[in-house]
């Protein structure tokens, strides 16, 4: 059973990490609480469905088009609806809720309320310590690892990363140092949305594509970033795996209460917040800022 819990926990945590890191990134840099983050993930899932299943494009091509298109949509949304009100955090939050709802309704209008699925890129499974792991899950885990690694390289080994971190630490000083903070925020938004899109195309073959598929991950992402410490990438990573493992543990240890896995995760978040109100890495993050 331990092998089962380890492997399934890693898979769950990996997908959550991809979504939560993107969410955290844009919050850290531009103080944008982007509720529409998982709506971009939903759009990516629908686009891959459209390109590969409906239009018959090669899955890899469909994935590339979907990610590019969603990233483009994300940057347009930023320019048109977030940037003009960026200074008003609560307004941004409300606007992004509205954006997510608009996306949901558009999808409902175009595709209806049908539950759809995408074929896996790779079918079949391998046995790891007696646990059956599908190739698609394994692929997801590898891609998540590389995307997170790439994000780390961008943030810590490139000039763009320095600009992003500088803007996250102090927007005004970064501006005074000659950085175009608006452009940095837009690029960060692009990276964050791209991560959500990658999450969407990875999850689409594992899950159900439907107009409300953005809601559950949103709750989990919010829980993860609060648990890890708002805006802390490290915290989001830790939070994602903590909640991923919690969900898996619940399923294995209390099969009758499998439906409570989300509730257990949220309870862990509350317990952590009672002990450390700033979240796991909140203090470090505040010091960074």
């Amino acid at each position, binding site marked *: *059973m331990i092998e*089962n819990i380890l492997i*399934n926990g890693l*898979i*769950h945590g990996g997908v959550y990490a991809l979504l939560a890191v993107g969410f955290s990134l844009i919050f850290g840099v531009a103080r944008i609480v982007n509720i529409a983050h998982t709506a971009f993930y939903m759009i990516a899932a629908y686009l891959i469905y459209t390109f590969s*299943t409906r239009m018959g494009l090669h899955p890899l091509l469909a994935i590339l088009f979907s990610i590019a298109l969603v990233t483009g949509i994300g940057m347009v949304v930023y320019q048109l609806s977030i940037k003009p009100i960026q200074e008003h955090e609560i307004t941004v939050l409300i606007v992004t809720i509205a954006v997510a709802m608009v996306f949901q309704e558009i999808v*409902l209008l175009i595709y*209806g*309320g*049908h*539950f*759809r*699925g*995408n*074929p*896996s890129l790779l*079918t*079949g*499974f391998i046995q790891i310590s007696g*646990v*059956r792991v*599908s190739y*698609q*899950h394994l692929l997801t885990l590898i891609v998540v690892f590389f995307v997170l690694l790439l994000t780390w390289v961008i943030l810590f080994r490139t000039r763009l990363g320095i600009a992003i971190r500088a803007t996250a630490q102090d927007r005004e000083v970064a501006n005074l140092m000659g950085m175009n903070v608006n452009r940095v925020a837009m690029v960060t938004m692009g990276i964050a949305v791209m991560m959500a899109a990658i999450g969407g195309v990875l*999850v689409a*073959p*594992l*899950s*159900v594509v*439907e107009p*409300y*598929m953005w809601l*559950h991950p949103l709750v989990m992402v919010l829980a993860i970033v609060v648990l890890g410490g708002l805006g802390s990438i490290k915290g989001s990573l830790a939070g994602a795996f903590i909640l991923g493992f919690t*969900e*898996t543990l619940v*399923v*294995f240890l209390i*099969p*009758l*209460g*499998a*439906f409570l*896995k*989300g509730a257990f995760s949220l309870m862990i978040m509350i317990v952590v917040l009672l002990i450390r109100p700033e979240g796991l890495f909140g203090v470090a993050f505040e010091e960074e800022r």
Partner: protein
Amino acid sequence: MIRPKIILVGAIISLFLIFCGVEVMSQEIKIGVAGPMAFIQGQHHWFGAEFAAEEINAKGGILVGGKRLPIKLIKIDTNEIINVPDAASAVERAITRDKVDFIIGGFRTEAVFAMQDVAMDYKKIFIGCGAAHPELCGRVAKDYNKYKYWFRVTPINSMFLAKVDFILLGMVGKFIGMELGIQKPKVAIFAEKAVWADPIVAAAKDNIPKMGMEVVGEWRPSATATDVTAELSAINASGAHIIFTTISGPLGIPYAKKWGELKIPAASVGINVEAQKKGFWEATGGLGNYDMTMNTYARVEITPMTIPFYDKFVAKVGEFPTYNAGTNDAIRILANAIEKAGTLDADKLVTELEKTDFYGAPGRIVFTKDHDVTWGPNFVTATGTQWQDGKLMCVWPVNWEGITYKGAVKYKIPPWVVEKWKKK
């Protein structure tokens, strides 16, 4: 000055008569089709009704007192999947504004209860084609005068759904015993956490041991869960030979997909509403092969009406009909009752509807004294369907109570289940 006045009065009377005449000429029977129209359930309500209305209208309409009146369908979008209270308002609006004469459809039990009350208050005949709760007809027994305008065509009520569910489980258990030599198969109960599933799970825990099988565990993922890999891994570890499913929501797709992809060595049987749909094969990328689910329709000769209706539905809609498409038979039953009664008067129609004995697509439809559709051999039985290489085949009833539907085939144990357990 008298002459112009006479002319004016004459003109008004003539206009009035003309309008009255137009009104009489354009008189039609308005049937409200209630369902969540953005979703497959509502769409099937609508298409089912549309097929029946088109056919009846092509013959000139329904004969009422020597005159043929065409059917006009009114779409009632109940939005009940997203917001239950919307349903009652939508029905009330259809009665008061659109002046519908009859209502058919409904999907979610809690919404149908509310719609039923509104329809009964206005003494409108409401034929249910979606909600399975027994109490919807129980109300007819408790307060006949108020609820007599309610009838149910599809699906069979949930008590009988559970009965069929266990018959299907027993059938698979027998196959496992006969073909794999396992005399006491182990069963994993896999049911979404929803109110409708609770009585089935409780009954399963009670009945499975009596059926000579063993319950190895009970997994209750959330009805909105999107990944059940962990649950399936746990079922695999439990050594189950059969997974007894009770799933109505989107969960049915990732469940079947992962079950097939990971080749979980347990036959899957029970209720998986998503597996009743044509899109299931595409949605699971074919990995849902061998999943078995209870169904209302199947492409077999339940009655002479079944295959023509099934084929027409698939050709026009591109989907297999779900039980919501029972609106097709609801309209035909209503039309028969109207023609026999020769009136649209609800009370007289109730008497005619109670005498219904109609061969519809899901079987022979006869109403019980509580206005529920009768379940059993030679009535509506429901079906057991299994995905076999891209086709949804009817595998039950086969030699059940002397009934085998023409076109039904033998149930197949998934080959990886055979491979795993045959050796032992």
